[in-house]
């Protein structure tokens, strides 16, 4: 007897649609986030044409269009817009950015002679060049046909001079200063302990270093004086004269003359600078190399710390510990550790790792240094080691749980076969169980890395700074400096967004930095996933 409910649609079909909808919403959110960040971030590097705008109160301004929004308080049916222009020349205009009511703009033109400059100090500038004074003294007016070529040549030459100067002052003088500091500390210690021949030797060394310092300074002066510096004389929007020595110029471009290929080139060049150069202007300009590097080093070091701890703990919990109420409590505690807010870990890291452990290490191993170096702590303050340890502690439960699951998933037959061959429990774990569960363990490490790379709050307490004088991993022994403070992308975002003096200048960088952070984490994950796939292929038959 066929009834109306006897249809051939399987039951529960509606739930399939629901779950599909959920997936779409989730994916949509992720894609939306990425698109938002991408759009806002990428526009930082793009160079559109720059207008010369006439405002109805007689002002003229030259600037790149940054934002456009609805004026506050404008009626809903007839919205009024305002525009933000990046005009640069902060030293003259007070502010790099300017909001203008759109209705007040009478007209815009795009003259071909508008020049954009990225400068070492005081941010960008948009000017109309008048004359170029070359380093050999010749003067070329802007209207001259050879102007652009000569100009770019001079900019390149000036950049070379600047590079040389940086090499002398920052790197070589920096090295001499560091050596001198060490020698002075040793001298004070030798004097204190009254080791006379060492005192004499150190004093001679300091004298030598002084000499080198003086000669380096001479060299620097010569470089500066040697080439007479070229400069550019231009007019700003208001007609004031602006003289820019070309050593100040990082990049120059004619925004209204570029074709698409030129703009793409410029985009690539800026992107490269962003990733590989060091920051300037309180982190609002320049590149993020130290922050990228610091994030990478810390994440990798954290993974190297958390993996053995997590794996060994999981092995003990699953294989050796007595099953019973105590074990259950331990397991619950480990799982709860995953829910503790990250800032709490930061406080723990500060209190225990930095003050207690770090202080003890300083007392035991660096007592001399403290005494003779104005009590500057080595490990008693935040640094790479404490940051990595804190985050390792935070991500430990993830690794423990993943390892336990992977171990449990190894088929019982394999374990029995190994034991029946006469292997001890440890041999079974080492030779059979661990290799078979390696893909699962790596999954846990991937999750831990992803979580650790994104946490910022605890890091602020235990060793991340806005601007670090040196990288935590460099060419000087012992190569990995566990005591140094470092820069971190996540902290950079926070710092830019909330702590920078010029919030308008910082805004585009916030998005760009966020984008970079996402890309970095994705790359780390992809690397780990690739390793895991290789392991899976080798141990096909493993269930993870």
């Amino acid at each position, binding site marked *: 007897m066929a009834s109306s409910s006897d249809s051939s649609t399987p039951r529960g079909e509606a739930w399939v649609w629901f779950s599909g909808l959920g997936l779409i919403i989730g994916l949509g959110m992720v894609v939306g986030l990425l698109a938002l960040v991408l759009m806002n971030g990428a526009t930082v590097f793009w160079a559109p044409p720059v207008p010369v705008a006439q405002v109805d109160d007689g002002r003229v301004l030259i600037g790149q269009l940054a934002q456009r929004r609805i004026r506050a308080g404008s009626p809903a049916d007839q919205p009024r817009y305002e525009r933000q222009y990046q005009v640069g020349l902060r030293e003259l205009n007070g502010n790099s950015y300017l909001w203008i009511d759109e209705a007040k703009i009478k007209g815009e033109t795009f003259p071909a002679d508008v020049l954009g400059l990225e400068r070492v100090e005081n941010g960008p500038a948009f000017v109309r060049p008048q004359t170029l004074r070359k380093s050999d003294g010749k003067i070329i007016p802007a209207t001259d046909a050879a102007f652009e070529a000569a100009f770019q040549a001079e900019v390149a030459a000036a950049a070379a001079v600047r590079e040389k100067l940086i090499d002398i002052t920052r790197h070589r003088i920096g090295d001499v200063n560091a050596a001198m500091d060490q020698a002075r500390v040793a001298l004070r210690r030798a004097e204190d302990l009254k080791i006379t021949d060492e005192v004499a030797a150190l004093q001679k060394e300091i004298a030598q270093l002084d000499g080198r310092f003086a000669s380096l300074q001479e060299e620097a002066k010569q470089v500066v004086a040697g080439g007479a510096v070229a400069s550019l004389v231009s007019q700003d929007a208001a007609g004031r004269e602006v003289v820019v020595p070309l050593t100040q110029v990082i990049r120059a471009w004619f925004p209204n003359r570029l074709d698409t290929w030129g703009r793409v080139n410029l985009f690539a060049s800026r992107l490269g600078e962003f990733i590989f150069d060091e920051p300037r202007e309180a982190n609002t300009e320049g590149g993020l190399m130290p922050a990228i590097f610091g994030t990478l080093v810390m994440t990798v070091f954290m993974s190297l710390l958390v993996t053995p701890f997590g794996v060994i703990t999981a092995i003990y919990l699953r294989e050796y510990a007595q099953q019973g109420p105590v074990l259950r409590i331990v397991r619950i505690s480990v799982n709860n550790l995953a829910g503790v807010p990250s800032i709490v870990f930061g406080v723990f890291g500060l209190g225990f790792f930095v003050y207690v452990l770090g202080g003890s290490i300083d007392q035991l191993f660096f007592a001399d240094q403290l005494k003779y170096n104005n009590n500057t702590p080595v490990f008693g303050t935040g640094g790479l080691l404490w940051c990595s340890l804190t985050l390792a502690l935070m991500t430990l439960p993830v690794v423990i749980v993943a390892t336990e699951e992977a171990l449990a998933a190894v088929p019982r037959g394999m374990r029995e076969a190994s034991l029946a*061959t006469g292997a001890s429990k440890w041999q079974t774990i080492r030779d059979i169980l661990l290799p078979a569960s390696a893909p699962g363990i790596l999954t846990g490490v991937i999750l831990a890395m992803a979580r650790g790379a994104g946490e910022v709050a605890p890091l602020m307490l235990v060793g991340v700074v806005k601007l670090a004088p040196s990288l935590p991993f460099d060419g000087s022994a012992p190569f990995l400096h566990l005591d140094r403070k470092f820069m971190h992308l996540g902290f950079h975002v926070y710092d830019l967004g909330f702590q920078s003096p010029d919030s308008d200048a910082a805004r585009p960088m916030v998005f760009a930095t966020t984008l970079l952070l996402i890309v970095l984490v994705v790359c780390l994950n992809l690397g780990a996933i690739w390793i895991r796939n290789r392991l899976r292929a080798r141990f096909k*038959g493993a269930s993870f």
Partner: protein
Amino acid sequence: MSQIMNPPSSSRIKVRPAAEREGRKDYISIRDFGFYYGAKKALDAISLDIPERQVVAFIGPSGCGKSTLLRNLNRMNDLVDGIRHEGDITINGRSIYDPGLEVISLRRRVGMVFQKSNPFPKSIFENVVYALRVVGVRDRAVLEEACETSLRKAALWDEVKDRLNDSALGLSGGQMQRLCIARAIANRPEILLMDEPCSALDPIATGKIEELIHELKEQFTIVIVTHSMQQAARVSDRTAFFYLGKQIEYDTTEKIFMNPTQAQTEAYISGRFG
């Protein structure tokens, strides 16, 4: 037709008849052995002697305790919590429960093959030599020679000699089980325990493994648990029939299957059980 009248000879090696092969009569001696899982009594007063270089089959319906008894011979049941035993099992005169005896050394002298073949996710070579590595052998030449010997004894050498470094998981079911046998005999144990080794295999693979058992009995003492009476009849020299944890009858295979003493045995082998 002439095949029926003139079948060619089968065995690769000369296997002596049971009486000629038999060594020490009480090589494995089980005396009044009782076994408990917690409160449940799984084995009740089992007493039997397994002579050297004989194949002994344990048969009986499901749950009769044959696998439990087998797993006690290499103390694999120690892995289960809450177990208890009475009586004793001795191998070559020494009790396996002797406190001075390390379980690990017992298991190195008693190899085991399981119902579901369980090769490690490693290469074929590494699987076979695992037992040797476990006892500390490192010399590559020694390992390679032992690998070849074991694989030849397990009738697998010709099939895998060119791909020793390939993953063991790429073999067929029958090949995997022979690999497990090779692994179990690599360290030259004296005794080989087999827990329903062919139950997951097709008749051809099963036949190959039975041929293997027939050859191995020239060197090893073999105890095999099987739910197939026909297999026990084909392969074993002596058979023990168990029911509900008790030993019902233990005698030569011919006696058990042609003219058993106990009525229960007769009922089981003629299929009139239950």
